[in-house]
């Protein structure tokens, strides 16, 4: 009897504690990224083009004054572009880079602007590395660990390279979890991750650059 009562309490409380992140995608970004190399063969940064879905684009454009209905010039959107890159700093620009396994740091973005076309906003910006690096294997990941923003590679040209003809860029879609990973995922509630864990990376969009 006691066991039954205890069982009931536990089930009830577990039911109530099923409460994960509130976040779920409300912003969809289709992105193209260009990995930028200097003449000496070192990587200097990443150039992003992020196209937002039409609903979020309309939301972001709310209250932005423009001369012609349905059209926004680059100048009219300059203030919004500034706000965008300022806000993204807190989220590390959703861009995580590693050179031969070593984490890289990005400086503040440069050359940023917004473009409005076909009812969608595209944010262009370049993320320079704090210090350019040369590496055989470069890995750049783009994802939002909190799932509020969903990132997806552009269909036509997801990835490109600038200034590194000797290197090869490939990309890796978020993969199907292996049985081991699936098992780990299912017990995340009971055995949580260390806050500094980078486990979420396995569900990232990966850009890989291999150089000889």
């Amino acid at each position: 009897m006691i066991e039954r009562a205890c069982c009931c309490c536990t089930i009830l409380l577990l039911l109530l504690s099923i409460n994960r992140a509130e976040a779920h995608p409300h912003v969809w970004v289709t992105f193209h990224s260009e990995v930028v190399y200097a003449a000496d063969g070192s990587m200097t940064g990443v150039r992003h083009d992020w196209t937002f879905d039409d609903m979020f684009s309309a939301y972001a454009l709310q209250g932005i004054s423009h001369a012609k209905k349905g059209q926004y010039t680059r100048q009219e959107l300059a203030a919004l572009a500034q706000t965008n890159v300022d806000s993204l700093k807190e989220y590390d620009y959703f861009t995580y880079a590693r050179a031969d396994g070593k984490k890289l740091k990005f400086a503040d973005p440069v050359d940023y602007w917004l473009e409005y076309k076909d009812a969608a906003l595209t944010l262009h910006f370049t993320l320079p590395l704090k210090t350019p690096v040369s590496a055989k294997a470069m890995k750049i990941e783009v994802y939002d660990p909190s799932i509020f923003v969903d990132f997806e590679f552009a269909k036509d040209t997801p990835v490109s390279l600038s200034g590194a003809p000797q290197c090869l860029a490939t990309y890796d879609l978020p993969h199907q979890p292996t049985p081991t990973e699936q098992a780990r995922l299912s017990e995340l509630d009971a055995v949580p991750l260390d806050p500094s864990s980078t486990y979420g990376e396995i569900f990232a969009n990966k850009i890989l650059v291999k150089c000889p």
Partner: protein
Amino acid sequence: MIKSQTIALTALTAIFIACTMGIVSAWSAPFGAPHLASAASTSGLMGWIFAEQAAFYRSLSGFIRAAKEDGAAMWELFGVSFVYGVFHAVGPGHGKAVISSYLVANEETWRRGVVLSFVSAAIQSVVAIIVVAIAAALLGATAKVIGLTVHLVEITSYALVTLIGLRLFYVKGRSFLIACRELTWRRAPELAFASATGAGTLRTQTVQLPGRVFGAMAMRGGRCMIDGCAVHSFHCHDDHHESAWGHAHGPGPAELAGAGGWRRGLSAVIAVGLRPCSGAIIVLIFALAQDLFWTGVGATLIMGLGTAATVAAIAIVAVSARGLANRVARTRAGFGMLAMRAIEAGAATLIVAFGIMLLAGYMASEQLWMFTG
């Protein structure tokens, strides 16, 4: 004596562990549910729900555009909005958890659970509509200002949830301590004595009860109100199991169903419902940009209806689970009551935990300002 203490300790530990797990699972949230780009790879029911609700949400913009050209498309839009609402609420969210915890802690009826769920969803929709109508449609505010407004409303909501949780925790925690002591004294009756003065302050709810119970209620009610449990009445539920444990801690069912009870429930759902859903805000602004604000309002209200249906279903499950625990507890007078008080106190703790975590930002909330400041 020792056995009862062991039982109490076990119950407490179980509840503590459950609460901690709730907090921890919420804390590890960002990784708990895989990235949506891997929608196909998230296996199981939750993954499917994630994928479905995202698909419905994304199709909304197309339906709103279609509604612009063709009035009949509006009905499709409303249909999709309803389904999105249903799926949206099945996914994770603090609203359901707080409402369910509240229903469990307060021993509410399933009927009231359903009504409160609908009221909370309605408030949520209306807040989104009011924010967009005033800020966007009338004042022409930017997304930044709207995001900030939503953030402020959100913080107010979380603070209210925390306050309501604390109040409940105070009330239920005390009931738990009373039950705990009672269990101890039961085993040592020579220490217990009646507090006769208590009978004078008897409340009205006992009027409908048969005379035998009346005496018991008088002592219990008097004890709790007069001496704040410092003086202890002789325990009375050995021969009146049901009435003793069912009515020991406050208003009877009749009083609970009265105006005061509703007011209490409403304060909880207002606190929860105050926080508008970012999805609704975005849909409304999108509709506004298409010069279809009223269509957006309709879609938002119907989305709320769908959400309410799911939340009500979850509320019914929570209330039934409590009912089940209740029946089990009834078979064991002392321990049963203690366990129920512990469940109530635990549910109240959960509300406080949710409120504080949301305030502290541990639980990733919907960050509308992620891009727009």
